[in-house]
């Protein structure tokens, strides 16, 4: 019996040690997988707003493989909310993909750690360069301090969605063109329409709300940064714009849930006829049209006494410097910015095409939401690209603004805190 116990003990201990060793050796095997091979497999990380979009992306990857038989692209999706952190963690740990979807505001925190490949050289010889909307190159150079680390993929401009039947019901005959009219129309729409209690504006108090808030502060003359990139958020104009934002909530012109409302809440509130207007981009248009038929339209964010600004949303693709197949990876991200891939992706997702040849296609050109987006292009901007921006957008703005909305701090305190957090 004793011998048996001893044998079992030895076996278990050996199994344990073998298990640990196996774990170590498998790690080595996976890191050695990048040994030179004729056929290359690239790993591409991305997020998709709807699971069905992945099917389109897989078709694009398959088409790329057909055109480049030695390169296979393996797609891996992560939730957008975690994407930046998952990618940063993977890179800090020495792993990560060959290519990934990306946001311009993330650029400094990646370039300061040399995680991104400078694409200037490969782009100079790329035939599709001239087809890209020129403004996008400017934004990408701005993000990379003069260098291009990102390849365009999709872009969006925020505008105001509204319900025409509500405008008609309260006697608004044309969409507002000034910010004062915009606020006045929000107040007019806060009433009972067809027996339903309607709020004029869907205010986004949770993450992502910094974009519509940006339009408010700039309408009153506030600015994020000066020409040299110095943060100048803390100004009387920004406080005034912030106060106007808060007053909509405090005055009862938004749903009472506004401090914690995110995009999905706003879309639900709009689809249920609970709000008359809200600010978002073309990415919502496909599902919103499905839900509301013809009773949905859009107008550009109006001009205020202090200026006019709307946020430009973006998604790019990058090549990670840890990739052992950077040439193939560059080829892949270039392919994604070419006509066929852009057309396939934007037809499915409803985003704005990054290349002119697709933007000129009737399906896009005649789309009312594309038209409003294009009309807003001249004053669309991005948040200042600083090492602190990604964290400010993801973690700082919402809790500070929620405190202001719920009366825990004043608009001036909120602006002061937002300024300090953006400065870092």
């Amino acid at each position: 019996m004793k011998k048996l116990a001893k044998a079992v003990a030895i076996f278990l201990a050996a199994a344990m040690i073998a298990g640990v060793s196996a774990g170590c050796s498998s790690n080595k095997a996976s890191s050695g997988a990048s040994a030179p091979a004729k056929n290359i497999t690239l790993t591409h990380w991305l997020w998709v707003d709807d699971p069905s979009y992945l099917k389109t992306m897989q078709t694009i990857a398959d088409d790329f493989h057909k055109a480049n038989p030695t390169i296979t692209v393996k797609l891996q999706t992560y939730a957008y909310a975690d994407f930046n952190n998952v990618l940063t963690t993977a890179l800090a740990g020495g792993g990560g993909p060959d290519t990934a979807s990306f946001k311009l505001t993330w650029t400094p925190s990646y370039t300061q750690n040399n995680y991104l490949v400078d694409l200037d050289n490969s782009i100079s010889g790329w035939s599709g360069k001239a087809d890209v909307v020129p403004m996008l190159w400017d934004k990408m150079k701005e993000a990379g301090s003069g260098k291009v680390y990102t390849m365009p993929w999709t872009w969006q401009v925020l505008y105001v969605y509204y319900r025409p039947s509500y405008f008609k019901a309260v006697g608004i005959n044309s969409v507002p063109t000034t910010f004062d009219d915009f606020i006045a129309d929000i107040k007019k729409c806060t009433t009972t329409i067809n027996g339903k209690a309607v709020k004029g504006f869907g205010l986004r108090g949770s993450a992502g709300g910094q974009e519509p808030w940006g339009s408010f502060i700039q309408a009153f003359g506030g600015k994020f940064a000066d020409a040299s990139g110095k943060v100048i958020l803390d100004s009387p104009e920004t406080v005034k714009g912030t106060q106007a934002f808060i007053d909509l909530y405090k005055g009862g012109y938004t749903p009472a849930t506004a401090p914690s409302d995110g995009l999905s809440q706003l879309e639900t509130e709009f689809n249920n006829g609970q709000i008359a207007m809200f600010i978002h981009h073309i990415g919502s248009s496909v599902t919103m049209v499905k839900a509301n038929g013809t009773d949905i339209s859009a107008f550009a964010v109006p001009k205020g006494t202090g200026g006019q600004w709307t946020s430009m949303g973006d998604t790019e693709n990058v090549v990670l410097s840890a990739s052992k197949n950077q040439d193939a990876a560059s080829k892949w991200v270039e392919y994604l910015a070419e006509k066929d891939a852009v057309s396939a992706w934007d037809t499915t997702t409803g985003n704005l095409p990054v290349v002119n040849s697709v933007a000129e296609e009737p399906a896009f050109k005649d789309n009312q939401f594309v038209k409003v987006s294009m009309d807003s292009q001249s004053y669309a901007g991005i948040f200042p690209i600083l090492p602190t921006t990604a964290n400010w957008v993801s973690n700082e703005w919402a809790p500070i603004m929620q405190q202001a909305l719920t009366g825990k701090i004043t608009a001036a305190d909120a602006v002061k805190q937002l300024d300090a957090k953006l400065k870092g």
Partner: protein
Amino acid sequence: MKKKINFAPYLLIAPAVVFMLLVVAYPAINSILMSFQNYNLTKPQQRGFIGLTNYITAFHDPLFYQSLINTLIWVIFGVGFQFLFGFILALILNRDFRGRGFIRSAALIPWVTPGVLIGLMWTWMYDGNYGVINDLLHKVGLINTFIPFLSDANAALPCVIITLVWQGIPFFAIMILAALQGVPGELYEAADVDGCPAHTKLFKITIPSIKNTIFVTTLLRIIWVANSIDIIFSMTNGGPGFSSMTLSVYAFKKAYGTLDFGYASTLSILLTLLLMIVAVFYLRNFFKSADEQ
């Protein structure tokens, strides 16, 4: 003559010891070490030991104190009401009545439901536009307009505490019920003979007899609740503002929101120290009482 060492017992426990060292000791020691480091994954080149800087930062951080106060409220009211209602439920379930078996099983449902699912379920129930709670309150005429429970800085924490209480009642009920079934019936018979009223039997027989169970379950629940993040995270994400931010949620957000693992470890270590104070207090009382018995 040299005594022969029998290695068999050591070899038998070796796998468990190795496993524990890997999954408990290593992360714990690593957390302590990280709490003394600048360990932010967005700035890997700045990584290094910085002494007590993270601890000093925590003691000057207003959000640390707000989270600490919220943690105390979260634990005291969360565990307190769980215990109270769990105890009452256990007393009810200890009685003979028709359908007791079914009720006992059904009462376990909140406890076996995953925390994130509970969070999502209650978020919908509390919803300020379409929530069933608002609908019921409106229908019975208690409110005229819907209340934005989770969007209100004063209501968010009490609301998530109610959800936590709902989740934890079965744990106390089942544990206390098991203890109640071990209380000898003769004690109650003797009390009945002496003409003791119900509340005397409760405080002189029932509670003293199950005191150890109460101590252990409360201690366990305090530790679990203080460390839990799933319900708060899925319902309010610590907001609006920081109104429902507890220390564990704050540490989690620091680690996985800003990737500042150094400061997150410091917050975790401080929470651990606080819990150890509570644990030592409880264990001392528990063991003292066991010795007395």
